[in-house]
């Protein structure tokens, strides 16, 4: 099969899986996940083939794989028709690689996460997380406090909406593949929004929980704010260039034109304003300040969803969009400054919040926001390759961490089912501790992921990518960004070690943690695979001039991804300062985190439970008071009740009484007196009276009539005679 044909086919299997599960397979759990995983596997296979073929092409950036068709007939000629197509250039290739891997691993993980093979819970409801099922096993000896002739114990129960979950993640994977393979902004946006829908559906997967339901709406609405701006940016770009195809826009003439045309808005060039509008879309999708509020709440969804959508793929898509449009966005310095500022600010802002969170997933959520901020900041200072590098490594290690946290939660839930104390929150890190002995695979893989996130020197992927961002910021003189990111990196290492220490090290703080158990292979295998990438993927991007290691491994990533741009970005000169900074912040943060938390026994001993941080700087409360509530108030009271029902209907309702009054007026003052009384009754009266008065004439005698006729005849004759004479 040609590579082009393959590229068209890659997104299809998950979509077909969605359709098949929804229409036919939704009653069979095994069939549903078989279809979904097979589809993910097919797409993975296609992606790997395309990836390998892409590696074999010299100068893939100039000669990418591409294919397009006419999609929307617009205007008079075929040239003005809107085309859509697929494109694989170096950027697409590397993104496709990590997307295919993470998607496949998360699909597999979901089987175990949703307790496939376990009995159905008697009290489980659709729309709520499963509560566990009681199993009776007679005659079997167990070392549990439960005793009696029949051995009753509670085991995790299978998710009641198991099939639906696989249908949704199938649709999601379709959206992500569409986005990555698109050769134009419009279908990229289509994939973007399909993922948004799936994110909404999956955050609200347990829709009967009010918190999940509200989180879903919040996620959709917050990202939609970004999306409408992005839509305007797309319309603007399309209007000014006549195309949305990346390859057609990124030609020097078009770019130069966009750079020189003023937009008429605050001194931005057209390129700058388009870039800014598109970037607002990214701010929403990648949860950057000030639209970051939805991502932590999105943790209401099942953990595979958090891993896939809210760490590895969808939120990365926001960064990907900026990377994709980099040749355009980088034309305007003003826009780039805004991007760098938003990214750097978000990086440190979210990191401070992460320090004070106790929910294992929320820590990771804020960490994701912060890391995405690193990438955005990198793009804002022009560090293209570093941003892509961090995008990929982050996807691997953050997916790993989320899946690890899901595994931890699962282990804890096992403990909760065992003790039967449902008041214990299995996601609260202060209920954990000492899990390293109970869940060794989860522990070691989580450790790898956590170290990668912290940028543990030399062996983890996160070190190389983060170091490259810092080195780039330093060497290009962006000292503010450099210092901000360095501090954020330090805090990253700190909260990561806090998380690891509280969760896995020390002694169990609750009986539930004591009874936690390692999760099945479907969950641990993805952890192992992803941890390989969390370490190994860093080696493809070791800078050429790095001491000792630089020469050993060729800096493949820089060459390859840099080739996407028409002007290859120059490799940064090696400098010892950013390297030392990287080492100090990573190791220092990890060490401090360990020292601070290794002896913490309870929440009260945690010195970072600062209300301002715990409450996320009260941004949610602020938005609620300033935007959400007033918007509804305005809609209800001003637009609906005042304008529509009050003013407009008020005016309309005047017509009724007015017509009524006018009618009565006509009747009472014209119809009745003039027509009825005067003309109607009046004429009748006149006739009647006249008849009355003339009655005496009607004698019935012929002689009298003839006499009268004669008199009249003479009288008229006399009158006529005199008239004629005169």
């Amino acid at each position, binding site marked *: 099969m040609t590579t082009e044909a393959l590229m068209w086919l890659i997104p299809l299997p998950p979509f077909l899986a969605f359709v098949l599960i*929804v229409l036919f397979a939704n009653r069979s759990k095994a069939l549903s996940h078989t279809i979904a995983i097979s589809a993910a596997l097919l797409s993975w296979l296609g992606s790997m083939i395309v990836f390998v073929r892409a590696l074999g092409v010299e100068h893939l950036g100039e000669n990418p794989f591409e294919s397009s068709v*006419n*999609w*929307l*007939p*617009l*205007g*008079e000629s075929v040239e*003005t028709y809107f085309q859509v197509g697929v494109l694989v250039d170096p950027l697409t290739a590397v993104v496709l690689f990590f997307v295919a891997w993470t998607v496949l691993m998360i699909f597999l993980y979901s089987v175990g996460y949703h307790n496939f093979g376990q009995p159905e819970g008697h009290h489980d*409801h*659709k*729309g709520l997380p499963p509560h566990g099922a009681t199993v009776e096993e007679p005659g079997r000896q167990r070392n549990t406090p439960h005793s009696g002739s029949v051995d009753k114990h509670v085991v995790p129960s299978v998710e009641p909406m198991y099939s639906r979950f696989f249908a949704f993640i199938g649709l999601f994977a379709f959206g992500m593949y569409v986005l990555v393979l698109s050769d134009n902004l*419009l279908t990229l*946006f*289509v994939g*973007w*929004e*399909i993922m948004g*829908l799936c994110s*909404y*559906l999956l955050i*609200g997967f347990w*829709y*009967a929980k*009010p918190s999940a*339901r509200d989180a*879903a*709406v919040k996620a*959709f*609405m917050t990202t*939609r*704010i970004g999306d*409408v*701006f992005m*839509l*305007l940016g*797309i*319309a*603007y770009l*399309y*209007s*000014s260039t006549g195309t949305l195809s990346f390859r057609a826009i990124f030609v020097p003439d078009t770019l130069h034109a966009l750079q020189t045309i003023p937009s008429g808005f605050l001194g931005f060039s057209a390129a700058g304003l388009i870039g800014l509008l598109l970037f607002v879309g990214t701010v929403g999708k990648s949860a950057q300040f000030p639209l970051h509020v939805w991502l932590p709440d999105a943790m209401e969804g099942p953990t595979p969803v958090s891993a896939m959508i809210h760490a590895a793929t969808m939120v990365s898509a926001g960064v990907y969009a900026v990377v994709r449009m980099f040749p355009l966005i980088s034309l305007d310095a003003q826009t780039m400054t805004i991007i760098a500022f938003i990214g750097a600010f978000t990086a440190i802002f979210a990191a401070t919040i992460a320090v004070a969170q106790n929910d294992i997933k929320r820590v990771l959520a804020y960490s994701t926001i912060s890391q995405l901020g690193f990438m955005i900041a990198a793009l804002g200072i022009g560090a293209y390759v570093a941003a892509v590098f961090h995008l990929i490594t982050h996807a691997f290690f953050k997916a790993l961490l989320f899946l690890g946290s899901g595994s931890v939660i699962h282990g804890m839930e096992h403990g909760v089912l065992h003790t039967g104390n449902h008041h214990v929150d299995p996601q609260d890190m202060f209920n954990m501790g000492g899990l390293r002995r109970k869940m060794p695979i989860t522990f070691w893989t989580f450790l790898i992921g956590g170290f990668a996130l912290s940028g543990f020197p030399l062996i983890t992927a996160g070190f190389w990518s983060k170091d490259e961002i810092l080195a780039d910021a330093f060497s290009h003189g962006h000292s503010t960004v450099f210092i901000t990111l360095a501090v954020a990196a330090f805090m990253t290492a700190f909260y990561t070690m806090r998380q690891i220490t509280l969760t896995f090290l020390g002694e169990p703080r609750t009986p539930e943690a004591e009874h936690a158990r390692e999760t099945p292979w479907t969950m641990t295998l993805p952890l192992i695979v992803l941890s390989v990438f969390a370490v190994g993927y860093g080696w493809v991007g070791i800078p050429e001039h790095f001491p000792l290691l630089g020469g050993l491994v060729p800096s493949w990533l820089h060459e390859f991804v840099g080739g996407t741009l028409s002007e290859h970005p120059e490799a940064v000169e090696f400098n010892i300062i950013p390297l030392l900074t990287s080492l100090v912040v990573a190791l220092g943060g990890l060490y401090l985190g360990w020292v601070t938390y290794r002896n913490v026994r309870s929440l009260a001993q945690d010195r970072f439970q600062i209300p301002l941080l715990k409450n996320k700087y009260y941004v949610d409360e602020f938005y609620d008071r300033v935007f959400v509530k007033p*918007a*509804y108030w*305005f*809609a*209800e009271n001003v*637009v*609906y*009740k005042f*304008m*529509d*029902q009050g003013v*407009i*209907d008020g005016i*309309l309702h005047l017509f009724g009484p007015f017509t009524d009054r006018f009618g009565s007026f006509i009747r009472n003052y014209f119809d009745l007196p003039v027509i009825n009384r005067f003309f109607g009754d009046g004429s009748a009266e006149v006739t009647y009276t006249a008849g009355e008065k003339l009655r005496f004439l009607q004698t019935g005698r012929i002689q009298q009539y003839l006499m009268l006729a004669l008199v009249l005849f003479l009288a008229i004759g006399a009158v006529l005679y005199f008239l004629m004479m005169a």
Partner: protein
Amino acid sequence: MNFIDAHLLSLILFIPSIAGLILLFLPSGEHRLIRWFAFGASLIPFVLSLIVWFRFDASQPGFQFEEVYVWYEAIGSSLHLGVDGLSLTMVLLTTLLTPLAILASFTIHDRVKAYMILFLFLETGMLGVFLALDLLIFFVFWEVGLVPMYFLINQWGSANRNYASLKFLIYTMGGSLGLLLAVQLLGVRFGTFDLLDLYTQWNALDPAEPWLGMSVGTVKTIAFWAFVIAFAIKVPVWPFHTWLPDAHTEAPTAGSMLLAGVLLKLGAYGFLRLILPLYPNEAQIFAGALALLATSAIVFGALASYAQTDFKRLVAYSSVNHMGFVVLGIAAAALAAGTPDATIALNGAILQMFNHGLSAAGMFFLVGVIYDRTHTRDLEKYGGLFPLVPVYGGILIFTSMASLGLPGLNGFISEFLVVRGSWPILTIYTAISMLGLLFTGAYILKGIKKVLHGPLNEHWAVQRGEHRLAEINTREILVMVPLMALIVWIGIWPAWILDVINKAVVMLF
């Protein structure tokens, strides 16, 4: 066959009415027979319009399948029928939605015969407007459609139906008074009502020439506003929209489907068929005002919808919001007629008319389905129904997403094209209308949240009780399937319909 071939359009137009007359002679008690007869009869125009659709040559300019019959020779009016890409799209929408609406009406048990007869008459009324190429005939059908709809709302509507039906009838009639005068004006001046003649003669008039004690230009401006007000009420353009939530909410389910699906399109069609070709200069001058009203409709329509606690009213207000995009596209095209941007805007506007017909009809039907079971439309009285009615829930989410304009479904294509076309022409208005697009999300999600999500309202879950909510049935699914199929089809591959629209737009404007 020759007869059918030669009279395709008049058959499409009159078969519903003939069927309605035949229905008169069927026994009133035979509900099954009446329903199936009405449904079968409404399928014939659909099949015929499919034939027209496939035989239609989109690349040929002008009108096709034309038929002319002498009607009122003394004043120069004739029954002149014909279709181009614009009207054919609307005819297809009408003949598709009518059978579905009749199928949706199978739950009507009260005076079934009268109901079905009115429905079939209504179809003729709507089709007549789209098929007419004679201004007087256009007006006649424009008014004819009102009568059956009035009685449908007034007789089969819900609690506040008297108020709503009267408001609907009076408002629309009031709007058409000016239209009638303006139509007469043209007819008197040229001695013909034939649109094709009027297009050329009317535009050939010298604006400075004195007429009726004014200049032709002034008369044209007055006539322009007479047309605009009639159509603006029908669309409805803000602030002429308040009849809509009342009429749509009180009408029976199928009535709402056709009101939103087709009747609103009559207004937009009037803009495209009459105002833009007859008044290009006036339209250009007043395009800014029209755009302002369109943007108001988009923003205030969405906000008002968001404020509703009645599910059906929420959906009704969404029509104001969506039709605002149609008018925005028209305003942009009026301002920059002939440019590529205008072409894109008009493509978007016309496609949006078709798309809104699909999604709004679907939404009203789904509201009807849940109302039939719960006998309430109050959003606060639902809650967490998803586990009880999973199939219904899935269909509701799907249709809501189409209404929301989710990429991959039909509404996105048309809204994007309108936004794209309007952006360079009416930048500020387009930017402001994004606020409406944002709140579209808010009200759609509010609907889903209140109906399907959240803790289950136990009232509907009582086992073996009379409240136990039943899942959507096969007949109801059958109503939705064609709509959903088209929603996806147009969303993924719109070329089949957009091609027809595009060619018509390129040739017409």
